[in-house]
């Protein structure tokens, strides 16, 4: 140990540090500035960037002792007295902040760049930020913020009048819906003072580390913890037998325990957990735990798990047959065999997609505390409600003894939506030790947790007539679920059912097998279930349009479903912006003059998409409304909005405030949102299936309307002294707008505060509720419930690519995207969601993959798992399409997931346009492109 003197954000510190301690640890743990984040602990993501003596440093890989007497600036120190630095202001104003976890590092990096390169360009900004991973924004708004800041700095320097500044700061009092605005918590995030799960500090907390299986499939013969228990500071070591109760997000597949009990089903599964005084000690103790295994035959591929396994041991003994098939989902409408015979043209292709991971920047973290109120857990979760249920179940306590709190969350994308083993383990260890217990996963552990997109193999037939009318679709799909169920049953259906739109198809069928394999489990990821199969169908459509020599845009236009119609599987389509979306991207990209008209190696591709706007059925069957929102208003006039919905960086807290403010005609500063705390907020099913804006939004709207009624009643009663007849008339006349409550004739002309004074007189604070219950939908056949949603979103993308025919490298130059979100309640946030979706789709299309070697995940870190950097991300052109959904809140529907679907096939179709090869495997690898190019060339030569 050594004393280190540092000046951090202008304040001097003397801290005792250990010799090989990293600067990030000193800043976060010793000085207590948790704005500096740890995303990868290897210098690959940039979240830990701080300035040391005015130079940016990756604090997670730099020893603290290097910096004796150094001047350090963290994000918290960029401005003083609670103010924002101009660049921070720009980040807020431009919507460059979503989950906010990359923001501190991003702001520091950008600031250093602009300070040193005042005449920077957009390209140089991209270059400067290329070591900072953002998984939410697609970098677009970040780059805009930095570019605009640098321009303003320059114009200040040259004393030219600064460009007209849009003032977003004024509290608009009217019409909050449809006005683009930063998230309500954006300021906190950009200052680095928003607390994420690992930023919470508890007195005397213990830290947890895990022993993980080194075999993909093995019997556990013995676990010897005796040596580890002897270490001073080790407080408890738990093994699987102590937590035998199974859990899982779906009631149908509660097939997981917190730790492996008798056998392990994937390499990386938790076998034992150590709670110790420090993280370092817990990790050290893990090395002293000896586990004896007897390896079993492992099943690592879809094919191996589909087949009869002979005398080997199944992964789960609960599966029906002598194989590892977890679920078979099949639905058929019409006769596909006949349809394919009758079709004038049939395209058939085999596809193979590798698994991918959510890649959110904040690793999972949880802390658990037990006290007289039972269990309180603060956890990085998308779904407090299901975690609440899983904890009650596994801890064997009533639901009333569990409280789950979601703090600020650094991205989810589906990867934080299951209850997780580590959450159950820390809850258990906290009870066992009587102390608060914390865990924060390493990036490798995040990858082992996975629950990412299922790898899949598909054979798909699409039949059409020569006039371009689509006639029949038959999909044969197998997906690799990994070791446990997760959302897999839903995924199995989604792979098929979500193909029944956006095109009219009366003859449609699919069959999906989901298999267990000895790998980390797969689950829900942005665009859940349908991304890969959508890719396949859009590729087939492209193929057919080429074969019948019809423009692929025209062919799609010809086949779109209309608004207000039913699909073959009885999905109720209400608003439908397919046509507008496709037209928009075709126009913006100059499609007619570009597609098929570029020189070899340069191409344009198009595709469309379709997604649910919230699952109409709850995961755990019950009769609760999908969402409830409470509003409280007291003498101070502020409306407290309480909702169980999880803001995971997508901006749902802001959405709730916008809706309530709109209905009540008040400014945003008269609202306050408290969300995702299962003790305080009413149940919402959580952030999955793109349900929050539609469902929680509708509940908030309902609640606000109820509150408005209460206010109108109270005001009318006061003015009319209880004259019932006059009251009734008057109530109808009352307007809520501009922080005022008034009638047109000004009989009533109150400020909001005056109206609230009347409301709470002799009564006190008023609480009202609102709810959303999905209408009854769908057919009465088995499987009819899959994919039912009160509304659906639609969209389209055009991609422009260049293919290097010597190396096979594909470079995406532009993506034009349009998405029908019903109504953009907050256009700035909608754009952010779209850009993030497209960016994630680009990643899966060109570089992301989870590579296994004998069941071991090879690329389990942010260096080897290739999320596109700012330099790899093309220019994205964003278009919001509004169709005013009849049931969505103010016409709104989903926007977070559906947009991802069209971008991947648009890229692959562009590759076809560029060089005439059909991509059937993702990601699009240079060597595969080259192989296909050669294959094509040799075929051509043979033909000659």
């Amino acid at each position, binding site marked *: 140990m050594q004393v280190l003197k540092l000046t951090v954000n202008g304040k001097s510190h003397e801290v005792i540090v250990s*010799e090989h301690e990293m600067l990030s640890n000193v800043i976060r743990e010793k000085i207590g500035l948790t704005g500096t984040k740890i995303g990868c602990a290897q*210098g690959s993501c940039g979240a830990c960037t701080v300035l040391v003596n005015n130079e940016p440093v990756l604090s997670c890989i730099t*020893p603290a002792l*290097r910096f004796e007497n150094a001047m350090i600036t963290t994000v918290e120190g960029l401005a003083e007295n609670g103010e924002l630095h101009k660049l921070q202001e720009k980040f807020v104003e431009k919507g460059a902040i979503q989950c906010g976890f990359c923001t501190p590092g991003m702001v520091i990096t950008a600031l250093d760049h602009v300070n040193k390169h005042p005449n920077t360009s957009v390209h140089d900004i991209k270059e400067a930020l*290329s070591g900072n991973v953002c998984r939410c924004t697609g970098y677009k708004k970040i780059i805009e913020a930095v570019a605009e800041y640098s321009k303003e700095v320059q114009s200040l320097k040259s004393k030219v009048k600064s460009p007209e500044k849009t003032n977003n700061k004024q509290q608009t009092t009217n019409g909050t819906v449809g006005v683009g605005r930063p998230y309500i918590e954006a300021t906190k995030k950009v200052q680095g003072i928003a607390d994420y799960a690992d930023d919470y500090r508890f007195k005397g907390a213990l830290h947890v580390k895990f022993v993980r299986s080194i075999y993909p499939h093995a019997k556990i013969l013995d676990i010897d913890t005796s040596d580890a228990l002897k270490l001073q500071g080790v407080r408890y070591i738990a093994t699987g037998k102590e937590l035998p109760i199974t859990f899982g997000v779906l009631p149908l597949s509660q097939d997981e325990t917190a730790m492996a009990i008798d056998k392990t089903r994937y390499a990386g599964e938790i076998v034992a957990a150590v709670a110790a005084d420090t993280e370092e000690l817990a990790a050290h103790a893990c090395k002293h735990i000896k586990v004896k295994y007897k390896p079993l035959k492992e099943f690592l591929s879809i094919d191996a798990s589909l087949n009869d396994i002979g005398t080997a041991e199944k992964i789960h003994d609960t599966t029906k047959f002598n194989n590892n098939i977890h679920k078979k989902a099949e639905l058929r409408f019409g006769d596909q065999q006949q349809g394919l015979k009758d079709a004038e043209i049939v395209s058939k292709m085999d596809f193979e997609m590798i698994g991918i991971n959510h890649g959110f920047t904040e690793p999972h973290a949880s802390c658990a505390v037990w006290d007289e109120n039972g269990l309180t857990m603060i956890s990085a979760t998308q779904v407090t409600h299901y975690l609440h249920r899983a904890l009650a179940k596994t801890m064997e306590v009533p639901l009333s003894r569990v409280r789950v709190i979601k703090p600020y969350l650094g991205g989810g994308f589906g990867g934080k939506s299951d209850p997780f083993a580590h959450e159950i383990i820390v809850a258990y260890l906290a009870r066992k030790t009587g102390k608060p217990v914390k865990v924060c996963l390493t990036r490798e552990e995040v990858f082992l947790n996975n629950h990412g997109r299922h790898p899949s193999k598909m054979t798909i037939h699409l039949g059409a007539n020569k006039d371009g009318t689509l006639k029949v679709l038959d999909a044969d799909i197998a997906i690799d679920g990994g070791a446990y169920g997760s959302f897999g049953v839903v995924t199995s259906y989604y792979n098929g059912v979500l193909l029944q739109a956006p095109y009219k198809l009366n003859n449609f069928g699919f069959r999906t097998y989901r298999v267990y394999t000895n790998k980390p489990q797969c689950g829900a990821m942005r665009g859940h279930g349908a991304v890969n199969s959508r890719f396949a169908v859009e590729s087939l459509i492209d193929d057919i349009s080429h074969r019948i020599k019809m423009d692929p845009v025209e062919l799609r236009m010809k086949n779109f479903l209309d608004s207000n119609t039913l699909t073959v599987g009885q999905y109720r389509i209400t608003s439908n912006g397919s046509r507008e979306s496709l037209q928009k991207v075709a126009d913006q990209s100059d499609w007619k003059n570009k597609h098929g008209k570029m020189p070899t190696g340069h191409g344009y591709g198009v595709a469309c998409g379709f997604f649910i706007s919230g699952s109409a059925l709850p995961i755990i069957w019950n009769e609760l409304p999908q969402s409830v929102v409470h509003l409280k208003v007291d003498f101070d006039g502020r409306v407290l909005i309480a909702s169980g919905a999880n803001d995971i960086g997508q901006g749902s807290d802001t959405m709730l405030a916008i809706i309530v403010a709109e209905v009540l005609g008040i400014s945003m500063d008269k609202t306050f949102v408290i969300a995702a705390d299962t003790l305080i907020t009413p149940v919402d099913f959580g952030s999955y299936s793109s349900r929050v804006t539609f469902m929680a939004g509708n509940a908030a709207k309902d609640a606000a309307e109820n509150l408005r009624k209460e206010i109108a009643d109270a005001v009318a009663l006061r003015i009319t002294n209880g004259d019932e007849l006059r009251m009734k008339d008057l109530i109808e006349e009352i307007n809520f707008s501009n922080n005022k409550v008034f009638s047109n004739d000004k009989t009533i002309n109150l400020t909001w505060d005056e109206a609230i004074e009347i409301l709470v007189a002799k009564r006190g604070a008023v609480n009202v509720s609102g709810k959303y219950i999905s209408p009854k939908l769908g057919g009465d056949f088995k499987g009819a419930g899959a994919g039912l949603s009160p509304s659906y979103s639609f969209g389209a993308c055009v991609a422009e690519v260049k293919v290097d025919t*010597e190396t096979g490298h594909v470079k995406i130059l532009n993506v034009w995207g349009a998405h029908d979100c019903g109504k953009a309640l907050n256009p700035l946030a909608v754009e952010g969601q779209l850009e993030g979706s497209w960016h994630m789709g680009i990643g899966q299309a060109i570089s992301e993959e989870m590579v296994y070697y004998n069941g071991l995940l090879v690329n389990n870190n942010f260096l080897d798992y290739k999320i596109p950097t700012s330099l790899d991300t093309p220019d994205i052109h964003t278009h919001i399409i509004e169709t005013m959904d009849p049931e969505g809140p103010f016409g709104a529907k989903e926007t977070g997931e559906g947009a991802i679907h069209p971008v991947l096939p648009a890229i692959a179709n562009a590759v076809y346009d560029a060089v005439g090869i059909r991509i059937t495997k993702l990601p699009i690898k240079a*060597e595969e492109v080259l192989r296909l190019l050669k294959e094509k060339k040799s075929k051509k030569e043979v033909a000659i």
Partner: protein
Amino acid sequence: MIVAEKVYLKPITVDEAIRFAKKYAGSFRYIAGGTDVIVNKFQGNDASDCLIDITGIEELKKVIKDKKHIKIGSLVRLDDLKTHPEIRKLFPALLEAAHSVASPMLRKTATLGGNILCENRCMFYNQSEWWREAVGYCLKCDGEICIATGGKKNCFSKFVSDTAPVLIALNASLEIADGEKEYILPLEEIYSGDGMKPRLLGNSAIIKFINLPLAEEPSCVFKKLRPREAVDFTSLTTAVSKSIKGKIRIVLGGVDPKPILIEGMANEKDELIKQAIKKSRIVDNDTYSRPYRKEMISVFLEQSFEKLNPS
């Protein structure tokens, strides 16, 4: 205490650093930027108890021009190379190579000396302790066999410095201090070709300067294969230089445990490319397959020759 005593030292002269090294000879590591060593440490691939941080040695941060050379201090950060007009003017390929390393922030910490001494990489080696135990420890971490080759007794971890191939192509030599002696060595001579111990330098040796000769004024073309335009280590680096007399030096990185050097004349293109491919011991330890990387050697070299000798 549960862990061995750790030490962190910050010498301010080369002599002091070497003294420290001798003192902790059993278990020490020099670190400059440390961006490579520290991550290896986290993964348990470096267990040295003593870190000797040499970034306080100001002498090694200079760039000096004499009559015959530009001498670049080994502690010059990759990002700082471009601030030297002479380097910019005379050796643009070196700037390109430096700029292709990792990410902007890493380049503001990582040094030129550190980059040429960057530890060899392999997807079976650059993993956590848990992972390496699960895969069954490869040769490079005290195992029995090379996993990438499915059982060979040699280590083929790849050489990944991007700057070294350019420096070698430009005939760079090193000024090395090791105890009492100081000596000069052509850069290519410090690499052993053995993935287990890829460098031949003495344990306590410190590279002081990287010297680039001025006389031959070679032109040089640099290329790097990687999936993304930033962050990634190389899957294939090529540097091809041509002197005014038409002498060619081809250097490959990322395809062998050491940089591959092929020398010849400008008119021997095909033969030189053939040799380069033949000499590379590529194994499947990378995100790109072995055949593809092999194929790209000739594509990159053809393109480089094209650029050097526009037809």
